């Protein structure tokens, strides 16, 4: 039975969250690290942008600044997510790990299967999206406005959005599982063509854990159930761990040089050595 590392749920600020994920990803590229599953939350609300997104054109930056909402750019692609009422996970593993696949979509399917098992145990009936991309393109900047093959639905509505980056034979997938969902807040922070219409669309197309089970559930219980889902589906043992000294050093360096900088978060495209 393979042993994985699990880094238990912790709330960090947005910049630290991305620095930690990238540090795990980059250190894993240098040697034989066990696959690492991490759960985390956000100390204060933040919008995370996909690697290629244009902050000025796709995010209401002034609104975010006025309300103390961080804007942070992810190392992964995809569209923007408003974090706060969500449980975020990241998984780093080698592409050639026998449990995964060099095929991106298949890797999504495997990870989604584990999360579905954990959600099921938590009282959420989730299933995978079967088609390719589904969405009318009206709110293209927002991750939850469209679904992709093997992403997660509850009650037919998107409940978890994920994105992946691959480099040097290692992948990082992180995803946002909505605990609650506030379409008004999303449409205020992320630029939409017609907010009034978009709010109604999102109400109909996006779900959340608490909406689905019509009850409250603790983050700790949810994390435990999802971790157990990975153990059961993939037949692995998760052992609680923390960042290695090398990962901590890299986290601090990335935090200072990349994720705390407007150059990266607002402009992105830090081509050469950023990736």
């Amino acid at each position, binding site marked *: 039975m393979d042993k994985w590392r699990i880094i238990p749920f912790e709330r960090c600020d947005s910049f630290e969250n991305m620095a930690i994920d990238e540090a795990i990803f980059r250190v894993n590229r240098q040697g034989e690290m066990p696959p690492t599953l991490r759960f985390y939350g956000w100390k204060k609300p933040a919008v995370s942008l996909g690697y290629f997104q244009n902050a000025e054109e796709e995010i209401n930056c002034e609104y975010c600044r006025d309300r103390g909402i961080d804007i942070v750019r992810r190392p992964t692609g995809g569209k923007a997510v408003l974090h706060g009422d969500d449980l975020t996970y990241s998984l780093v593993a080698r592409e050639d790990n026998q449990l995964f696949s060099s*095929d991106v979509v298949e890797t999504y399917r495997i990870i989604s299967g584990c999360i579905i098992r954990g959600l099921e145990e938590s009282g959420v009936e989730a299933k995978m999206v079967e088609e390719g991309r589904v969405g009318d393109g009206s709110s293209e900047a927002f991750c939850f406005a469209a679904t992709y093959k093997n992403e997660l639905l509850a009650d037919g509505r998107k409940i978890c959005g994920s994105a992946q980056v691959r480099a040097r034979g290692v992948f990082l997938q992180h995803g946002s599982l909505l605990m609650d969902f506030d379409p008004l807040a999303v449409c205020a922070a992320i630029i939409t063509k017609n907010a009034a219409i978009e709010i109604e669309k999102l109400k109909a197309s996006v779900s959340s854990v608490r909406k689905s089970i019509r009850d409250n559930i603790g983050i700790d219980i949810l994390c435990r159930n999802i971790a157990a889902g990975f153990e059961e589906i993939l037949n692995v043992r998760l052992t609680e761990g923390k960042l290695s000294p090398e990962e901590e050093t890299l986290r601090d360096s990335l935090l200072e040089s990349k994720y705390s900088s407007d150059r990266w978060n607002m402009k992105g495209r830090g081509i050469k050595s950023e990736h």
Partner: protein
Amino acid sequence: MSFPEDLLYSRDHTWVRIDGDIATVGITDYAQDKLDEILSVELFPVDSHVEQGEPFGVIESLKVTTELISPVSGDIITANEDLADDVGILNSDLYDTGWMITVEVRDVEELDNLLDAEGYSDYVDESEEIG
């Protein structure tokens, strides 16, 4: 899947067209098929130095962002600016208008590390069996 015979291929799924000491580089049909719909590409700027086996850019498709790995070492002479206007040619015309960069090759012996069309086709078949 198409792998033209006049090109060389890397195991990182890029193709190379050699003309004197100039290498034109792009991604293979296998790569674009695996990536699915390509959304964005970011290339190192002209005059950057690239190394064989090291990144020369980043590409984003519907569900993954991944490094582009250079099949040759040398300085980038040109980068395809048309990709910024129509990245879809990476899916539709990747061996012609979908080229990405040209590189002035410093060490022609490096080309021995690349595969011909038949060798690359076999490599892809093996990857599929494993993956």
